[in-house]
C-alpha cells in the first residue's frame, strides 16, 4: 500500500505544496475503510477530519424533514470530502454515507489545526486550497439549483 505522504504528493489537491508541508499534513493522516452503508460522519456531530477518497463512493445527504433524506452529491475516488473541520463551529453540516466499499485517508482536523497554529504559511495554503474546493462545490450546487433540465 502506498504510504500517505506519497499519496498526498500525487494528489492534485496538494499540488504546489512544499515537501515539508506535505510531510506535516501526512503526519495527521491515517488510512480508513468503510463498508457499504457505514456512516462516515453525521450532520450536527463535531467535525474533526477531512477525507481523501481513494476508492469507492460516499453520498452526502441532508435530512429534508417531511421530504425524507435527500442525496445532494456523491464523492468518489480522487475527491476531497469534508470542509467543516476548518471553519468554526467545526460541526458537520451534512451526513456522509459510504455507498460502496470505500477506502480513504482521513486527515485529523484537530491535529491539522494544531500544526497550522504554529505555521502561518501552512494555514494560509490549506485555507486557499479549501477555498478552491468550496468554490467548485458552490458552482456545482448552483448548477443543480438552476434545474437546467426543468421546463
Amino acid at each position, binding site marked *: 500500500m502506498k504510504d500517505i505522504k506519497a499519496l498526498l504528493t500525487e494528489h492534485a489537491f496538494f499540488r504546489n505544496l512544499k515537501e515539508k508541508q506535505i510531510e506535516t499534513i501526512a503526519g495527521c493522516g491515517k488510512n480508513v475503510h468503510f463498508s457499504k452503508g457505514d456512516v462516515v460522519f453525521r450532520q450536527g456531530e463535531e467535525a474533526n477530519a477531512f477525507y481523501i477518497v481513494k476508492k469507492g463512493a460516499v453520498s452526502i445527504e441532508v435530512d429534508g424533514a417531511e421530504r425524507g433524506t435527500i442525496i445532494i452529491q*456523491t464523492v468518489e475516488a480522487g475527491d476531497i470530502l469534508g470542509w467543516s473541520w476548518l471553519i468554526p463551529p467545526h460541526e458537520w453540516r451534512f451526513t456522509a454515507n459510504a455507498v460502496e466499499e470505500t477506502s480513504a485517508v482521513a486527515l485529523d482536523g484537530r491535529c491539522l489545526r494544531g500544526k497550522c497554529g504554529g505555521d502561518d504559511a501552512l494555514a494560509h495554503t490549506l485555507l486557499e486550497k479549501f477555498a478552491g474546493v468550496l468554490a467548485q462545490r458552490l458552482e456545482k450546487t448552483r448548477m443543480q439549483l438552476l434545474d437546467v*433540465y426543468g421546463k
Partner: protein
Amino acid sequence: MIPQQFRIQKLKSETYDTFTMELVSEKKKDGFSFLPGQFNMLYVFGVGEVPISISGDPTKQENLMHTIRDVGSVTGALRKLEEGDSVGVRGPFGSAWPVEAAEGKDVVIVTGGIGLAPLRPAFYHILANRKKYGKVAILYGARTPEDILYPEDLQEWRSKFDLQVRVTVDRAGKDWHGTVGVVPSLISKVRFDPKNTLAMVCGPEIMMRFTVQELEKCGLMTEQIYVSMERNMKCAIGFCGHCQYGPKFICKDGPVFRFDEIEELFAVREV
C-alpha cells in the same frame, strides 16, 4: 418541401413527460436514411410543426424513431396521438455528429436531459463500428432518477467492458444508489487522451457551457468539441431566418456545430 405522411407504428412512454414514436412511411417502403444528429420537422395536422431529432439506430433505418418531450402545444398534440395515427414528416435536415472524423480517436459524449435523444444515433453508430474508435465514454445527466431516458440502453451499454458509461442525477432520495451531481463533474472521472479526443455535447445551453469549460480544463481545444444547438424553426431549409443564430442558421449550418465556430455567439445571451 411538403410533409410526407407517416403512420405511428409504435409508441413507448419513456418518462412521465417523454415518449418515443416509431414511424413508418405510408408510401416509401425502403426506410428512411439519415445521419446521426439530423432532425425532422414533425407536423401535427391542424396544430403545427416542430423540429425533432432522429433518435433511432442509423444502421436500422426501416422505422423512423423520435423521442419527444411534451413541453407545449405541438409536442403536447404529438403526445395525444395513438398508434395508427398519422403525422407529417419533412426531413432529414441539418448537420451531423462527426462520427467519421472521430475514427481513430477517443470519444467523450456528454448529454443532459432530452439531449441523449439526438446523440443516441451517434452512439449506435460508434457501437456498430467499435473497433474504429479508441476509448469511448458516455456521460449522462438527468434531473432525478425518474427522468432518466432509455434506462434499458444505458444498462446494456454499461455491461460492455469497452465502454465507460456514467449516469448522474441532480437530486435523489435514499433509494438511488447511483451518482448525484452535475454531469460535467463526471468528465474527470473517465479515461481519454485529451490530445486525441473528440467530444460531442448535447443538452440545455447552461449545461453545455459548464461542460465545455470542464472539457477545456481537461485539456481539450474548442476544435475538439461539438455541440448541438436549438432555436425555434419554421422553414428548416434556410429561408425564413427564424432559427438565425448570429450569422448562422441552425437548421442549415447546424444543429451540430464545432464549438470554435460558434464560441463567440455562445458567450452572448439570446443571440
